[in-house]
């Protein structure tokens, strides 16, 4: 095992992934490096990749005309950026900006979707990994929407 496959094996998101599936995923992976302030993706752009953060911090932002972007979440080492690649129309719904120097692995979405279609065991495994992350973020969003620190 070497290179990207080794990095994938060490990333918490792919912990316990079967060797044959890890090899398939590694075939869709590539290394990225973003300086602070660089964007991993922009709202409306094609979600043709998702990212595993190896090092650094990524801020998820939404922009409104005439206002500075609002950061609604930050993601750290060991976390993933992006779920838009999973569902059509495969467009990013937010910006993702490197808040610090960030090293990440990008997984080519079309490549992985194709492999998931061809190997449903891999597809099922991917869903089992993504769904808890999505649910966790949904719960966090619920708490944010409730604005619990306001005067009630």
């Amino acid at each position, binding site marked *: 095992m070497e290179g990207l496959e080794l990095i994938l094996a060490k990333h918490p998101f792919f912990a316990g992934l079967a060797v044959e599936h890890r090899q398939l995923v590694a075939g869709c992976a590539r290394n990225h490096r973003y300086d602070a302030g660089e964007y991993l993706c922009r709202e409306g752009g094609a979600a043709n990749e998702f990212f595993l953060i190896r090092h650094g911090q990524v801020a998820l932002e939404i922009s409104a005309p005439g206002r*500075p972007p609002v*950061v609604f*979440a930050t993601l*750290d080492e060991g976390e993933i950026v992006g779920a838009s690649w999973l569902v059509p129309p495969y467009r990013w719904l937010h910006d993702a*900006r490197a808040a610090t120097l960030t090293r990440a692995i990008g997984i080519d979405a079309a490549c992985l979707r194709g492999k998931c279609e061809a190997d449903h065991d891999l597809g099922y495994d991917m869903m089992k990994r993504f769904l808890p992350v999505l649910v966790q973020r949904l719960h*966090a969003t619920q708490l*944010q929407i409730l604005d619990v620190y306001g005067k009630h």
Partner: protein
Amino acid sequence: MSTASTDLSRRADLDALRPQLYRVARVQPELADTSTLELEPPSGSRPAFEAGQFNMLYAFGVGEIAVSISGATDAPGFIHTVRNVGAVSAALAKLEVGATVGLRGPYGSAWPLAAARGADVLFVAGGLGLAPLRPAIYAVLANRAHYGRVIILVGSRNPASLLYADELARWQERLDLDLRLTVDHADAAWHSHVGVVPALIRRVAFDASDAVAMVCGPELMMRFTVNALREAGVEPERIYLSLERNMKCAVGLCGHCQFGPAFICKDGPVMRFDRIAQILAVREI
């Protein structure tokens, strides 16, 4: 019981309800609607208190409310951080140096500082919940060698609403504790976390089998925090919450703060999660 001892007992009860006059020695504006008052005792010394306890503060002509003590246990006076959310707190928040307030206390239960010795300690604060935790944080930092890893997680609505910002900045420079700040929303100038405070729990390193968690904040935030602590492996009997209810008499007589079989003023405000988990789940309470 003899008549004499009954009279003494009644006198003690009455003394517990009688406010003493305290002078406002210092006012520290914290946020737009929040100030910290340093209250000097009428004579040389004030009653001792334990981290986690509260006093009843009386604004003359307006009313009385329970306010957690937010200063160090060895501070000369009582320190209270007051947020303007109602008539009494508004009156307290407007007090100037030299003004007089009525104060009775301290009351209630304390954070488990002795029980936490030797263990990793997690403080999880949401919004103004940092105020009741601050005396416990001071005590742990003053006896740092007696504790394992010390983790402080603080959540707030936005960067401008972070309580004790200067003190947080000083704590952030310490190498013997892990302080993480998070806010619900921010702009690009904010360089810490954005998200809810329970989400920080899985990002910090601690020994869940030998950790004690002390949590204070809005009840919803505490509920989500308990879930995250349980997911991380912290046992319910090692999780402590500071609860807030409508406290009036502060001595367990009036029943306003009844919480199932307990009274928050007398049996709380700091309560062990496993002892209140079932009651917390009752929507009507």
